[in-house]
């Protein structure tokens, strides 16, 4: 089945009343949870996973599709009105979006984010449909060593490129790989890293791990370091949506953002930070005259481009996930877990064996995307009301819901204790600049990588050179070297240029922007980038990869 054919087939699966309702429900619930500050798509799916226990597989995934995109839409609302992005892909859009909201242009910022996300999501999802069958055709011919090579790519790119410091990202990855080891070895039946605890024989439940790292880590981080127990939500009451000028200024950034986001989602290039950051700096470079000065102070292009890039990137990560079974972001990793709970392993065989499921999922991503636009443009005022939940109740609610989720997995308080332990780990990682996504990807992909590695070596009777003996794996490793060095190079160049010359002038500090403008300029944007020493007055901030 080629892409178009498959998509048409997918629509016949998705267009039943029941499945449309599930898509709508997913979009609704996903947006609702995603709007809550600090809850990104990964955590939204992890928290809502129990909702689908006992559902029919296709319906469950159609529900997920809605939740996935819904959480992303919700996230941009919080970014713009609250400047609490919740996940790294929304950070860049939060800068100018929040400035626009403060200047009374919040509605326009939300609209450009929503429409941009819709356009990017739609184009990217159609591209997923077009690319997937071709990649599957290649993928079915790949052997264990080739898959192992691809997984090494995923590890290194996710580990080295997510977050500001490659060393810290790789450390996160190593910790994740270690967690993935816990439990019974699939081949020999030996127990590893269980320390005599029978409860650990099944391994660490990935849902518990994800909820702990994201939700409990988040709650503890906020409790320990919040500056105020009240949110300063910008109002959008009575504001105009996009004007003609806004539209004229937005459509090119939407398309450019899509063009940047999608390929970087497909090739694993390390999360959604890099594409959004690239899109922002591209838009800024393309802006002329007074427009350029607006960047950092509420340029609509600075919201339109990165938001489109973020959504296109998220859709792009579905390509390696669905065709190869390789998750390259925390969200993709959780979708993989969701598949596994139904006894399915995403990969080349899945598209062959379960075409209804995969094509139904892709089609419902498109349907969900459209529903979200319809839900979001008129209803955004309703979502904004969710931001009015007082912070203490919100975080107490997140904490108790996370505890409930961990308890409900097996009905065992042991899982709750694990949740707390990893929650504290999640807090420490967050506090000291270690990205969370590589931990999740390492824990989930690690066991799969070990499987492929041992399979490959079993075939070659233990000759490690076999890993480099297929043309495909050679190509992959060579490409890896390029992929690894190139973005780092681009980023270094970008950072130099952005932080030193332009960001210094225009982009205020992420967290301390409530002081007056003059003060702001002494503290360039933090993003997730470490600042070069030259942009800061003290030596301690000079962490450079």
């Amino acid at each position, binding site marked *: 089945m080629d892409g178009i054919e498959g998509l048409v087939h997918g629509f016949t699966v998705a267009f039943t009343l029941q499945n449309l309702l599930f898509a709508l429900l997913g979009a609704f619930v996903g947006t609702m949870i995603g709007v809550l500050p600090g809850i990104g798509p990964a955590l939204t799916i992890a928290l809502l996973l129990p909702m689908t226990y006992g559902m029919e597989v296709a319906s469950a995934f159609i529900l997920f599709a809605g939740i996935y995109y819904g959480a992303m839409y919700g996230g941009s609302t919080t970014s713009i009105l609250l400047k609490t992005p919740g996940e790294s892909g929304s950070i860049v859009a939060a800068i100018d979006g929040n400035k626009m909201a403060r200047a009374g242009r919040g509605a326009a910022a939300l609209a450009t984010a929503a429409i941009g996300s819709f356009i990017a999501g739609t184009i990217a999802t159609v591209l997923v449909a077009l690319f997937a069958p071709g990649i599957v055709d290649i993928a079915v011919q790949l052997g264990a060593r080739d898959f192992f090579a691809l997984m090494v790519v995923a590890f290194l790119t996710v580990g080295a490129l997510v977050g500001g410091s490659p060393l810290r990202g790789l450390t996160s990855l190593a910790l994740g790989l270690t967690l993935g080891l816990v439990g019974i070895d699939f081949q020999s039946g030996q127990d590893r890293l269980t320390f005599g605890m029978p409860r650990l024989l099944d391994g660490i439940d990935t849902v518990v791990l994800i909820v702990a790292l994201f939700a409990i880590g988040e709650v503890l981080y906020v409790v320990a370091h919040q500056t105020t127990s009240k949110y300063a939500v910008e109002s959008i009451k009575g504001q105009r949506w996009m004007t003609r000028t806004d539209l004229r200024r937005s459509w090119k950034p939407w398309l450019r953002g899509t063009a940047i986001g999608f390929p970087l989602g497909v090739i694993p290039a390390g999360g959604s930070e890099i594409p959004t950051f690239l899109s922002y700096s591209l838009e800024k470079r393309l802006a002329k005259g007074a427009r350029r000065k607006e960047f950092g102070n509420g340029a609509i292009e600075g919201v339109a481009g990165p938001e489109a890039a973020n959504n296109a990137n998220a859709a792009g990560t579905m390509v390696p996930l669905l065709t190869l079974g390789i998750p390259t972001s925390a969200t993709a990793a959780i979708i993989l877990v969701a598949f596994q709970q139904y006894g399915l392993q995403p990969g080349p065989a899945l598209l062959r064996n379960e075409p209804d499921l995969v094509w139904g999922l892709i089609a419902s991503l498109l349907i969900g995307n459209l529903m979200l636009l319809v839900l979001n443009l008129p209803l955004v005022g309703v979502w904004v009301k969710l931001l009015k939940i007082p912070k203490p109740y919100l975080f107490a609610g997140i904490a108790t819901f996370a505890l409930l989720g961990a308890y409900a997995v097996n009905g065992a308080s042991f899982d709750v204790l694990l949740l707390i332990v990893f929650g504290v780990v999640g807090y420490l990682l967050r506090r000291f600049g270690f990205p969370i996504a590589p931990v999740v990807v390492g824990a989930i992909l690690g066991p799969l990588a070990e499987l492929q590695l041992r399979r490959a070596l079993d075939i070659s009777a233990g000759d490690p050179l076999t890993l480099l003996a297929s043309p495909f794996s050679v190509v992959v490793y060579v490409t890896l070297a390029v992929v690894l060095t190139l973005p780092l190079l681009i980023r270094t160049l970008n950072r130099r240029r952005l932080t030193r010359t332009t960001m210094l002038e225009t982009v205020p500090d992420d967290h301390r922007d409530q002081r007056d403008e003059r003060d702001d300029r002494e503290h360039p944007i933090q993003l997730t980038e470490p600042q070069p020493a030259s942009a800061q007055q003290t030596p*301690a901030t000079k962490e450079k990869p």
Partner: protein
Amino acid sequence: MTNRPTVAPESGAAIAAPGAGATRVPEAGAKRRWPELLLGIAVVAIGIVTILDGLSQPASTSASGLGAGQFPMIVGGLTTGLGILLIVQILRGRLGHPDAAEGDVDASRLHWWQLLLATAALVLFALTVDVLGYPIAAAITFVAVAFATGAKRWLLTIGIAVVLSLGVFYLFTLLLRIQLPAGILTGIL
């Protein structure tokens, strides 16, 4: 409840003045380094434990000679190496940057007792959920976390906690048919 730091008036004024951030004060640098150093040491320790665990695995009988032990040794070696690099980096003064994806947080200040209260509340839930039952344990945890996050009105908070935990209990047991323990309230609920 002395919620001083958490109830600072509008977030703006009270947030760190320039230079007050942990990583920005040179003379405080050595002291600030300790938590991260401990973290680096913990990473090395995790790596070593993983290597030892791998070494203790029985020899493989598979064609590749790879058994349960080799992959852990690779992962453990990687972890140890990265931990050592991390310690070196920290000693040279390169500290981590706190997560930038949050609003209204200032990582250079730590609300110690609020953090302890919230953690204790979570642990309390784990220890008491089977005995006290879900509704009571969850309500206590909710109240404690809410106060750690700056809630001020006792009665309202307790009211919300009770309604919420009972609501969740009935939703799960009646509607979703997922059993939650009723604990000491068995027979009453």
